[in-house]
């Protein structure tokens, strides 16, 4: 009976794998199609190279313009066609505008003034360095048909399939293993039972008699007092060891990775985009707190980064997708930021309606321990990663170090003080190195193990 199920299970697994393979191959074809469409689009322009235009656009325009939505400036998809149709303006007007928009406004060009007024009188930077050819390229890029719909379906397919495959890889295999283990136990039990039944049928009952005659092993054990004593001592020592181990981890939250109100990925920010830690955690340079960045710091970039598009070929990876970290998911998190900071995307304005984000604090030092970030980061020039671990790889931030006193002390014993080029240390370094006869000094030698340095 059981074996039959087992066989079915295998066929199911095989079946699902097949489906997955097929699906993923379909999506591969789909992506190929998209590429073909894009390639076609680039060729289909009047005297401009859309690929070059894309690069120029990202370099010069993307900070204030998007293709399909209003940002600081208007949406630019098909801008040339739109202007020609609505306003009757030609490419020459665009050349003039891009190269010297303030001049156009000053000269009183009606559409220029109108646009200027519409976008909160935010003047567009003049780009005199762009040649007409460059502008042609950009316009070609803006005129290219959007590749989005095809990509969207492809991605959707991708998601579905990868979800399925991820599921198989972990849960089903584990489940199967548990099942196999269970079956083995059951089989053992059955075999035993059958054997006994056979023995019974044969009229053999040797086992029981045997047991009655001999002294049971536990009785023998109990009678041997030395053995008992040894065992008791061993047990006590063992339990003391484990009790101590258990007690010492009380209050140590290494690996603590709470769910945050906004899924902020350090991996994307610090890893993929290589944003310097102290760009956001700026107070680590001058304060005892590293500081959770205020939302206006987020908005420095996220005013223009309104959606997550991932990096081609890298992110979101299969693993990310398996965890549900899709582009839409991340974009949704950016929307949460907008809601919190009160950013009206439609009108590119702050509404003033804010809801501060209640982050869950991960690194909690007890109140009686004083720790100063600037001392370590700025004076000691210690990498953030030394204590916080590979943050740039953390999708979800967790506590990397134990943050125990022993951990602090060890580091103070081993780490040399960065005395070079710091006038403060000049005198004390000279004197202390003479006293200890060493060239480099550890924090401990500078008095970094004294109680009062951290506890007051």
């Amino acid at each position: 009976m059981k074996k039959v199920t087992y066989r079915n299970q295998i066929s199911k697994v095989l079946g699902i794998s097949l489906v997955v393979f097929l699906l993923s191959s379909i999506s591969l074809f789909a992506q190929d199609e998209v590429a073909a469409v894009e390639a076609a689009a680039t060729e289909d322009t009047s005297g401009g190279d859309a690929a070059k235009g894309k690069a120029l656009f990202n370099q010069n325009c993307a900070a204030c313009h998007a293709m399909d939505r209003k940002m600081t400036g208007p949406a630019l998809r098909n801008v040339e066609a739109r202007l020609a149709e609505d306003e009757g303006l030609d490419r020459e007007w665009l050349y003039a505008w891009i190269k010297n928009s303030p001049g156009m406004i000053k000269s009183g060009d009606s559409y220029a003034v109108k646009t200027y007024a519409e976008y909160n009188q935010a003047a567009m930077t003049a780009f005199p360095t762009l040649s007409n050819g460059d502008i042609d390229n950009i316009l070609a890029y803006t005129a290219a048909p959007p590749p989005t719909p095809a990509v969207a379906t492809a991605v959707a397919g991708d998601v579905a399939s990868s979800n399925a495959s991820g599921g198989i890889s972990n849960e089903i295999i584990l489940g199967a293993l548990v099942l196999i283990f269970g079956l083995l136990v059951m089989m053992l039990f059955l075999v035993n039972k059958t054997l006994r039944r056979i023995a019974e049928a044969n009229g053999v009952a040797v086992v029981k008699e045997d047991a009655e005659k001999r002294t049971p092993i536990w009785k023998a054990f109990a009678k041997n007092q030395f053995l008992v004593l040894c065992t008791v001592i061993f047990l006590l020592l063992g339990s003391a060891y484990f009790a101590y181990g258990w007690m010492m981890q009380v209050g140590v939250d290494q690996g603590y990775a709470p769910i945050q109100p906004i899924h902020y990925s350090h991996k994307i920010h610090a890893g993929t985009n290589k944003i310097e830690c102290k760009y956001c955690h700026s107070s680590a340079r001058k304060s005892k707190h590293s500081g959770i960045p205020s939302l206006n710091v987020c908005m420095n970039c996220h005013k223009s980064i309104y959606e997550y598009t991932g990096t081609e070929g890298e992110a979101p990876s299969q693993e990310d997708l398996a965890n549900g970290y899709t582009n839409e998911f991340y974009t949704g998190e950016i929307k949460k930021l907008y809601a919190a900071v009160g950013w009206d995307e439609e009108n590119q304005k702050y509404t003033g309606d804010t809801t501060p984000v209640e982050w869950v604090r991960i690194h909690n030092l007890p109140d009686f321990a004083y720790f100063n970030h600037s001392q370590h980061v700025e004076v000691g020039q210690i990498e953030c990663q030394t204590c916080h671990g590979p943050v740039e790889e953390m999708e979800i931030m967790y506590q990397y170090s134990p943050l125990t006193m022993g951990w602090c002390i060890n580091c103070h014993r081993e780490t040399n003080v960065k005395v070079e080029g710091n006038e403060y240390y000049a005198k004390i370094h000279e004197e202390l190195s003479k006293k200890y006869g060493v060239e480099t000094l550890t924090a401990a030698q500078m008095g970094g193990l004294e109680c009062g340095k951290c506890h007051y």
Partner: protein
Amino acid sequence: MASNKKYWKSEAELNPNDSIVEALRQNEFVEDIPVDEFLGDKETLESTNTNRRDFLKYVGFSTAAASLAACEGPVIKSIPYVVAPENIVPGVANYYATTIANGFDFASILIKTREGRPIKVENNKEAKVGGGANARVQASVLSLYDSTRLQGPKSGAGEDVSWAVIDAAVKSKLNSGKQIALLTQTYASPSTSRLIEEFKAANANVNHVTYDAISEEAALTAFESKYGERALADYDFENADIIVSFGADFLGDWQGGGYDSGYSKGRVPKNGKMSKHVQFEANMSLTGANADKRVPLTAQFQKVALAYLYAKLNGTSAGGEIPADAQKVLDSLIAQIRKNKSGAVVVSGIDDINVQTIVLAINEMLGSKAFDSKAPRYTRQGNVKAVQSLIADMNAGKVGTLIIDGVNPMYSLPNAAEFKTGIENVDLSVNFSTNWNETSAVSTYAAASNHYLESWGDAQIKKGHYSLMQPTIKELFDTRQFHTSVLKWMGSDKSYYDYIKETWSTFVLNGSDFNKAIHDGVFVAGSGAMMAVSEIADPVMMAASSDKEEVDEMVDEAQMMSPSISISSAVRSLANATGADGMELTLYSKVGMGDGQQANNPWLQEFPDPITRVCWDNYVTVSKADAETLGVINENVANGGLDGSYVNLTVNGVTVNNVPVIIQPGQAKGTVGLSFGYGKKEGMKSEMQTGVNAFALYQDFSTIQSVSIAKAEGNHEFACVQLHKTMMGRGDIIKETTLEIFNTKDHAEWNHVPQVSLNHQEVPATSVDLWDSFDRSIGHHFNMSIDLNACTGCGACVIACHAENNVPVVGKQEVRKSRDMHWLRIDRYYSSEESFDADNTKKDDFDGLSGDNGSLGGFGELEDPSANPQVAFQPVMCQHCNHAPCETVCPVAATSHSRQGQNHMAYNRCVGTRYCANNCPYKVRRFNWFLYNNNDEFDFHMNNDLGKMVVNPDVNVRSRGVIEKCSMCIQKTQKSILDAKRDGRPVADDEFQTACSSACSNGAIVFGDINDKESEVAELKESDRMYHLLESVGTKPNVFYHVKVRNTTEA
């Protein structure tokens, strides 16, 4: 057989049928144990069905539940700003310059804010005038977070109303024909003067009356009649060589206070010179305690003595007799003054226009360098006659609207009852105050006013010295300051900030930058352009004062006559001054409480009075001789507390009952003293309702009254932190010498290092060492220098330490049990003989146990302070011994020494054995007997969210069961070091500060690194006057003192 022997406890047991015996045998206890009483009433006990087993189940379950719940760590939320203010970095303090001008205290200060919360008051070192914050100003930051503050406007009945209601009510009354009276504190503010002038111009019949709770009427009037401006002469005691004071507590609150830092500078012997200070007074005041020569004298004799002094200096003669000893001192003084006329200065605190006129005349006559009548102070403007006529107007129904700001007349007026009937006749009364008080209760509306740390404002403390008040936090509650309200009532849409800016750029700044003035907090009219500037600015002040006169013209008739009072007649009237029948009462204000505005401030309540060392009370001070006559006593009871008798004081038919008595050494015979500021009831927490209200006795606004005293029943329990009053001739605690010896003899003589015997040789105790010394010559080595000559005992450091280090307030009952938590105390010692020197001699001359010079009786005598003792103050905090006795006895190594010289205390390591406290020879360690935070048993400020906002985030809040003590502000030294490291530079000398050293505007406490040979403290350590406390113990402290030198030079 023996075991069958029967013992009888009572004869009754012989009768086996006795029922009582039987009953007693059955019962375990003779009497019923009142189980029901402590378990609740019997009926409910019986009706409940919780039996013992259930109870155990509940206990078991709740213990298990509690331990399970404790397993999971709490989730801590961090909420960053949505839009971070540009200049706030979490964890980094910002400092803002502002000014306190609450009508009693005027000072330019810096406010330390953390994450937008003001947490500490610091001195504004850039201010030349009023840059020192006294204890009350230091404590004022806690009043901002007073949980009993008014959180919004209320009606007199205590119901919440909106500002619109009050505005509408006031506006409807404007121009109604009846008088609109503004009864306010002294502002000394150019902008306020201008504002009130404009308010007067816009509305008919406005009467502005300035009222000081503790009046300086006599001094103001005398100055006005002599110099034509209602102000107070300024004194710079630094320039004075001879200071003669007749009852002027100028180190306290005399004429607005703030004179101590100049005084202290003149008290430190430099080039063999220091000022000489002679004090004639009735109460033992802080100033008298610091004097070189103090003569206890009743106010009557003070007047005669002043007349005598004037006459002698003038070459004439005056009548009147003074006691012989005073006469002797006075004669010697006169001889000295004659030699150095311009170096002398005479001041007086007697509320008598004749006295004040003569004081001005003497200083003018001497051409005193310390006397400044050209640029006077404006910190008191109150006009008693105007106040009295306002009350009369109110009672006559002439006043339609009464706006009160910054004063509490129902509490502080001697004729409060009259004021009450008056205010009932006023159509509309609005009382601006931060707290609900006695006056709020009788007003139509209680307008919730801003704390000064939430307000804009300005002040001209001294002519030409301006300071600005800026808010350091947004209004915590729905409050509004008086000025904003007046602007609103005038229909102006200007903010008071704009108004100040306008005033300043028009009248004050003379082209200087307003933003720079705000940044600095102070602005001094440039020395070249000073006269011109003050002339421009003056019309503002002048207009205010002249207008005041107009209003008060009728009542001022008598006052206007005063210039015609000739000096000679003043002298005559003083010389003929007659004594009071009965006792003479001198009312005074304590440095810890002032006029009682901050009576709800637990730091100030627990601040021990520098002289009596009593906190949480006011009391009547009586001389020992009078105490014996009255039959009143002070006694120390078994639990270490001080108890005192009660008396009833009656002045002119007004009686204050049950005033506790303190027997005060140095109190002039025939006089008693009582301090203002206590006895407030309305709107106060019950713990803070301490003492009796002395304002009831402040009749005719005179601090000197004739009083009759009757002993009352009962004993008062004091909370006194120092029971032992004398030093018993132990000269190594406070070393004292005279200027003459100091100048002529070797320091080994007057600053003797104690000797110990080593190998049968007498060697200095400092040279003997039980331990191997640690080499501290590398890195920083912190030392603190305390100059006993510069320390006046004012106690600003005590409060500063409280604020900086989150020292808990423990309450009166705990202080009484000697459980006060002050990390820094100021010990006060009296001499038993006339001087400390005489004590030492007496002790040294003891010969044998009994007999005339026997030590048995002699030590007993030494315990009693003299009738007029010498007084010495000594701030004592942890001495941070290099060979600390506390460190060697700690079983868990919770206290240990650092290479920087600080004695560390790891609270989290402490298990509370208190061995360290026992082994500390200086008794500076404090034990947390209770959890003082988050504990409603200690309802002060650490049990509510508002009060906790004052807590310094860089310092632990200690829990129950641990020892705490002065850390030498390690959080501050560490910060200075870190700042230097970050900038990559050595630490500058003045960067190392402790809370006490930066609070000490007198320069008595200097802190620094002695390994920096250039530092001030290193230089001070080399001084001949340097000594360590209890040097013979060999603890090698890092705190050192400077021998007190008294200028007893005779003519």
